[in-house]
């Protein structure tokens, strides 16, 4: 298992280098995909190497010239990576979220790299609007055509179905890992889980599927020790592994999450039997009913209600919210979550994360206190 994780870790530590090597080996174009709602399946079906663009650990330096410091770390990192030339190996970028900060970054990329095709297709964000299905079908159909034009290769329905099948399989593998962790059958750390999910975003799918098989073959059995905790938030990019380590070093262990680089990314499959565009459309439009996302609008489905249910189903004893500094959708919805958890008496802790170095020692004191308080409350409840 450790070997498999180590290979995943190599890809995760330098995803664009991994993609460049794959491109060199296969001759296939690399398409960078921006979070959080575009299906990599289509790029895969077009014969490209899809890679979900990640925040990188480098401090923001040259990027400061093109993005304000009151933008989220992910956007600042994207701009910095762009200006450092990290995206030079990309053959296209697939864009289209309505996040106002990402829209600014899209224009910076276009200005700096006018030669880099940007497949910009903005999805309908009101998922229960009368026209949402029609618009979403139109958006994915347009993307289908643009990918064909970009790669010079027709995407057949069968190829799209194959890609959907492969992606479904990979997602199902990771969900199985989640189920085992939740059931207490394995002691997988939050860092390792992040490596698994993050690497699935950037690695060749077949290779990742094989590595997942390897992980299942060598999983250490037995429950993890510590207070069970649920993690929430951190849209668009992964929290620093050091923060996950810190949380688990304070006597907690993570039993579930709705992080984008986590359950949110792999929670749902596409219908393999349906027309591929229709399958993608349903997959997208049903998202909020499964895992509510603050960036989409629907009349039903509350994030806080979902989280309370997940706390119960995972038997977590507390919620740690990881909020990316300057992430507007999360800032809007945090008070909803806070109020709901206060009303139910479920312990929760907000941690605001930053791209730049964070004072981990100060954070450690807060997490230790939280684990102690939540643990005491759990003991009282059990008694």
């Amino acid at each position, binding site marked *: 298992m450790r070997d498999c994780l180590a290979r995943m870790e190599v890809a995760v530590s330098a995803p664009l280098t991994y993609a460049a090597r794959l491109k060199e080996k296969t001759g296939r174009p690399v398409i960078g995909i921006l979070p959080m709602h575009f299906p990599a399946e289509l790029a895969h079906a077009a014969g490209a190497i899809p890679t979900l663009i990640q925040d990188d650990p480098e401090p923001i330096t040259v990027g400061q010239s093109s993005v304000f410091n009151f933008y989220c770390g992910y956007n600042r990192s994207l701009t910095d990576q762009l200006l450092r030339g990290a995206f030079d190996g990309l053959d296209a970028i697939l864009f289209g979220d309505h996040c106002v900060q990402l829209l600014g970054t899209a224009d910076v990329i276009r200005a700096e790299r006018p030669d880099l095709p940007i497949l910009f297709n903005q999805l309908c964000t009101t998922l229960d609007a009368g026209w949402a299905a029609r618009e979403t079908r139109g958006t994915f159909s347009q993307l289908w055509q643009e990918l064909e034009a970009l790669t010079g290769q027709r995407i057949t329905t069968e190829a799209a179905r194959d890609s959907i099948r492969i992606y479904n399989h990979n997602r199902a593998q990771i969900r199985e890992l989640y189920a085992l962790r939740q059931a207490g059958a394995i002691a997988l750390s939050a860092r390792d889980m992040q490596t698994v999910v993050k690497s699935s975003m950037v690695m060749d799918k077949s290779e990742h599927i094989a590595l997942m098989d390897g992980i299942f073959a060598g999983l250490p059995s037995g429950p993890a020790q510590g207070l069970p905790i649920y993690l929430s938030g951190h849209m668009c990019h992964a929290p620093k592994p050091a923060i996950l380590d810190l949380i688990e070093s304070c006597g907690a262990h993570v039993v579930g999450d709705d992080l984008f680089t986590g359950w949110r990314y792999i929670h749902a499959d596409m219908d393999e039997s349906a027309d591929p565009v229709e399958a993608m459309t349903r997959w997208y439009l049903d998202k909020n009913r499964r895992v509510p996302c603050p*960036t989409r609008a629907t009349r039903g489905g509350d994030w806080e209600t979902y989280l309370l249910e997940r706390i119960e189903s995972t038997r977590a004893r507390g919620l740690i919210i990881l909020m990316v500094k300057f992430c507007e959708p999360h*800032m809007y919805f945090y*008070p909803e979550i806070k109020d709901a958890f206060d009303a139910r008496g479920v312990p929760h802790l907000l941690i605001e994360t930053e791209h730049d170095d964070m004072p981990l020692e100060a954070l450690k004191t807060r997490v230790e206190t939280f684990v102690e308080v939540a643990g005491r409350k759990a003991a009282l409840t059990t008694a």
Partner: protein
Amino acid sequence: MSPDTLTAQTRPIFGNGEKANKLAATKFGGKLVSEYWEGVFRAKEEGKTVVWYNGTYIPPFFHAHDLVWVHGEAWAAMLAARHREIGAQARGDARGYDRELCSYARTHIGQMLIEMDKLKSGTSDLDPDDPRIETMLKLPAPDMIVNAYPYCSSGQQWDDITYRMFGKKVPMFTIQIPLLWGGRPDAGYMQGEEWEQRSDYVAEQLMALTDFLAEHTGRPFDFDRLSDSMSYVKRAAELRLEAMDLCTATPSPASFFDWIVSIAPVNFLPGDQNLVTYFEGVKAEIETRIANGEGAVKDEKYRLFFDGMMNWNKVGWLADKFASVNACVVAGRYTHMSFWQEPQLIDLENPVRGMAQNYLICPNNHGAPIMIGEIEKLCDKFDIDGVVCHASRTCRGMTNSQFLIAGSAKKYGRQAMFFEGDVADESFYKDELLNVRLEAMIEAIDARKRAA
């Protein structure tokens, strides 16, 4: 007082002490705005249906349907302009809204919370000395919510919170006004396949809005009344643009700050004769000033362009700030690229598609190349020396692309500068930073002029 007679005690810290020469005609707008808010406050007593909305200028639909409307941003801007925003923002802070969140939203949501506190406590009695009382006492709760935000994702989320705060019981309608990315080969300002598709898409949603309004009031939507309202809006918009065009004169007879205080009429006031009268008055005063050689700034030496959202706490302050260094801010992205900017698109027989198109071309809803191209046209037209970018801390919809805008200005021989502030949170404004940067900018413009 002549600068020569100033002493160390009387000399201003910055500039020469001159004030902006504001248009007198805009006072009529202040009266209209006050009357409008009074009408809002009376809405419940008069049995009116109230719709809260955010985003673009869709009130003609509400006006045509005899509704009372509250624009969340206008409400927040009004509180900020009257320096009454702090209580509302503090209430938002208390619930956990981070101060990096859109300050329009924080002010509006904070106000909602204050109103709800009153309801929960069973009293609407505030201390008579409470400074909030004048502007906060009567904001009527919504019977409907409409969201119609171009470009900015924050607006949609803001109204989602409004919807939740009222227990998900108030009917809500969301209109998506998608970005005109301009990536297709035929893309251009108001042209190309994307433009046509998006125009149809937004028009379709506006038609659905009329169904929504009819459904929730039990009355059919009156399209004749919409056309009637739009006839005044269209004429007012034409007069506004004609008056703006007159500011190519030197000295400029009006400034960006006059156009800022003229936004309310074309943004959210009812489409009636008052709008036309207002802009007739503004245009007439501008013509008189041109005939008399009178400028919006005494001894105009520099002509500037303002990029970014307005700092509503500082409208008069900034107008005087620029005037005190003989700089006239002649035009701006927010004022000159929005608010019925293309009235000729509106067919009064069938106005909906033209309205949709005007909503699509709001000042940040174009991809940067087309948007900056339009800014450059304005800078050429108004003979601009420099571009002032207001980096509004919590309004990322307007700070996006500002580095590209500044770069473009420099490319075409203009100075560019930034100053920090915000739309409705005064704490982000740093006066001395603006002072030193503005001084540096005008010195650089002087040097450039001398060299030429």
